[in-house]
């Protein structure tokens, strides 16, 4: 398993390299630059500023320098937040983003699996149909629509929850963004769970478990759940990726000081290093989380061998 993990990480290096390269040149293709203001700077000053940030060098040279820095863990300075390095900004945004994303995925998992199993065990009942209809809606509505809707209902009409802001991480500020982030995943996981539960309940080995005279609780918990969870575990890889990218949108809508908001601001300000830094961070997280998901899958399914 160690050599498997090592190999996966090794394979990730060229992937990361491609991501960095593509991102680097793509953001440079966008019109404008980090120091374009409404009123143009006097040419003398602009030249000095560009020199200070090495932006007067040829592009290939800048690229080589940047990659060289990243390899040593240096994401460079931010062009807009002059007193901070990109690493510091990401570090300051991380706690909020982590709380948001982690809570969302846990909620999606717990409730998705719960509702899905419930529906599967009462297949074709009213409750089953209700869960499936609601979850279909949840999947169909993207979170950039869901978020304003939630704000409108709970923030504006009912005035129960703050419309936006982080309020130093008070619970009441987190409810709407976490809900908006978690709902589509919760809905998808519920459907996935139901489908694979129904399938597993019809499996021959579950019939064997019943033939052995085991109590229904054991038949479900010991003989059905584990097999039924495998597709859900597989989905956790894409789910975390979607939560990470989704949080970029959600943090912006709810004005939450997380990594995602820095990403959007960085893109608007042409703060090249900040945008790249956030992208590299997200890509690394996605790769690492997918690796963890695959390792967990291997623990659950004895047929998977890592060697």
């Amino acid at each position: 398993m160690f050599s498997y993990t090592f190999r996966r990480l090794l394979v990730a290096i060229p992937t990361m390299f491609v991501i960095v390269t593509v991102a680097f040149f793509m953001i440079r293709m966008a019109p404008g630059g980090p120091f374009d203001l409404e009123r143009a700077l006097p040419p003398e000053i602009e030249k000095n500023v560009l020199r200070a940030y090495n932006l007067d060098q040829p592009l290939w040279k800048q690229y080589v320098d940047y990659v060289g820095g990243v390899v040593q863990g240096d994401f460079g300075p931010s062009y807009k937040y002059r007193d901070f390095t990109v690493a510091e900004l990401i570090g300051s945004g991380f706690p909020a983003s982590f709380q948001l994303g982690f809570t969302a995925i846990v909620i999606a998992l717990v409730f998705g699996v719960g509702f899905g199993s419930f529906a599967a065990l009462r297949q074709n009942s009213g409750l089953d149909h209700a869960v499936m209809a609601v979850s279909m809606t949840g999947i169909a509505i993207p979170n950039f629509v869901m978020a304003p809707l939630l704000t409108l209902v709970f923030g504006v009409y009912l005035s129960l929850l703050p419309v936006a802001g982080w309020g130093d991480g008070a619970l009441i500020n987190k409810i709407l963004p976490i809900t908006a982030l978690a709902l589509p995943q919760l809905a998808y996981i519920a459907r996935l769970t139901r489908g694979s539960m129904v399938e597993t309940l019809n499996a021959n080995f579950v019939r064997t478990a019943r033939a052995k005279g085991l109590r229904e609780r054991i038949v479900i918990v010991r003989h059905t759940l584990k097999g039924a969870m495998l597709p859900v575990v597989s989905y956790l890889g894409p789910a975390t990726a979607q939560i990470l990218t989704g949080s970029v949108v959600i943090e912006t809508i709810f004005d939450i000081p997380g990594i995602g908001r820095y990403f959007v601001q960085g893109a608007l300000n042409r703060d090249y290093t900040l945008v790249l830094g956030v992208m590299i961070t997200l890509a690394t997280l996605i790769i690492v989380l997918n690796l963890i998901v695959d390792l967990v899958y291997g623990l659950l399914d004895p047929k998977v061998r890592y060697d």
Partner: protein
Amino acid sequence: MTAVLDIDDLNIRFSTPEGTVNAVNGLSLSVSAGESVGIVGESGSGKSQVFLSTMGLLAKNGRAKGSTRFHGEELLGLKADRLNAIRGVRMAMIFQDPMTSLNPYLRISRQMTEVLMEHKGLSRAEARSRSIRMLERVGIPEAAKRVDMYPHEFSGGMRQRVMIAMALLCEPDLIIADEPTTALDVTIQAQILDLLSELRGDTNSAVVLITHDLGVVAGLCDRVVVMYAGRVVETGLVRDIFYSPRHPYTVGLLESIPRLEGDGEGGAEHPRLKAIDGQPPNLQSEIAGCAFAPRCPRVEERCQQERPDLIGLDNGHACACHKVGPT
């Protein structure tokens, strides 16, 4: 002899979007203590459903009516916890496909010990050592080591041995084996059948052997029940069924067993297989007359309108055909 299992006028219906399937129709049979009964018939004749209903394992869309008694106790409609005190303990079932009938996510040890812990109240350690002994008894080499493996680490034949060991754990009075060898290749089939007949020698369990292969029945059973379209069409001692089959369907089945021509002596091995022409009937509509009529070489006028009853001949030999009467 007392009956271990007594099925009386059993009807099994499945409701499907296309209509009701009459899988089993007015079927009666009984199995005595220690006896071995073969159930034969083509695919779809209802063999499995009869005994799945006995075990309380019918699919959700299926309903069983009539009576199925185990040692006199009615099983149909029995509450789940009472049924669980019988199945897996006093009667056990071995399924056709050992590849999918064992749980791929649990070790063999877990799948075996849970039976003994649930029903016999054994500690895990006791249950484990008894499981290992049972695996040795069904011929699994290095049982103490292999008990901790997962099903996919066993070959098909070995998995079926595990299934058999699992069924025997609580020393049941009745073992139902549903085509235990169909999914295995020929040499392994023979080994498993040898094992079953060997085990039959030293346990007192009654055995129901479901198969569409009359050859298997010949080696292993005392009695045969021949089913067609969810009904018993002929039943009797193995000897009587093989040497004096009366029902045209049984005759057809016997003719379809592959035989070797030219008995040894350099005789070319030409398996002569004569399948019965035609298809089994659609079970979605009630059949007025004899269900076998469309395929029967001896069919006559009244076969189309009147259903033949199962008529006793002699020695417990019985047959449901208008052309066959007591002699």
